[in-house]
């Protein structure tokens, strides 16, 4: 059974601080996605990483996929109130020709002005 542990569950920080969210598993994934979800809406894709050791940057957000493709991190530099939301990681894999995804439990981030 695939399992994806995400930490921390909750994070409340001041504007301008840096933070890192972690996503860990004992399973290997073909891809790892990070999503952000606003209240009353579905998750929206931020980034996909597919290669072990891959680093992607999206403005102040830096995403890294572990060398063994079992873990990932999201780092936010100089957080802003607009970064507030629920961040979800999701591991994807293919089995018997079908694609499945498993989600972490989420990190609820609140950035205070």
């Amino acid at each position: 059974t695939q399992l994806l542990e995400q930490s921390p569950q909750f994070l409340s920080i001041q504007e301008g601080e840096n933070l890192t969210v972690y996503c860990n598993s004992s399973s290997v994934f073909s891809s790892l996605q990070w999503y952000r979800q606003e209240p009353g809406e579905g998750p929206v894709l931020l980034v996909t990483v597919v290669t072990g050791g891959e680093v992607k940057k999206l403005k102040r957000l830096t995403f890294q996929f572990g060398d063994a493709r079992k873990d990932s991190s999201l780092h936010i530099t100089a957080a802003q109130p607009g970064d507030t939301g629920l961040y979800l990681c999701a591991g994807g894999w293919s089995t018997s020709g079908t694609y499945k995804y498993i989600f972490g439990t989420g990190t609820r981030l609140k950035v205070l002005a």
Partner: protein
Amino acid sequence: DAGITQSPRHKVTETGTPVTLRCHQTENHRYMYWYRQDPGHGLRLIHYSYGVKDTDKGEVSDGYSVSRSKTEDFLLTLESATSSQTSVYFCATGGGSPLHFGNGTRLTVT
């Protein structure tokens, strides 16, 4: 935006009644998924479909059934709703590519 519409957006129903949630997509994606989201559990896969009339169970499929008679529509049925099925239900499309989500259906079973 993958053009995913979920209906209804909100529903309150009584224990023991059947309920059907609908997901409609306009992007011709082959794969469609139903997830439920609950505090402390994140998104959990209920059922998924990899083509018309091709469906399979996810990790929390008990008490749920699905049907896909057309590429664009994926229906989730709660055969006899229970209070434990109170949740927010999300439909997603994708498969081999990142998922695109609808805006969810908030279901309350009283």
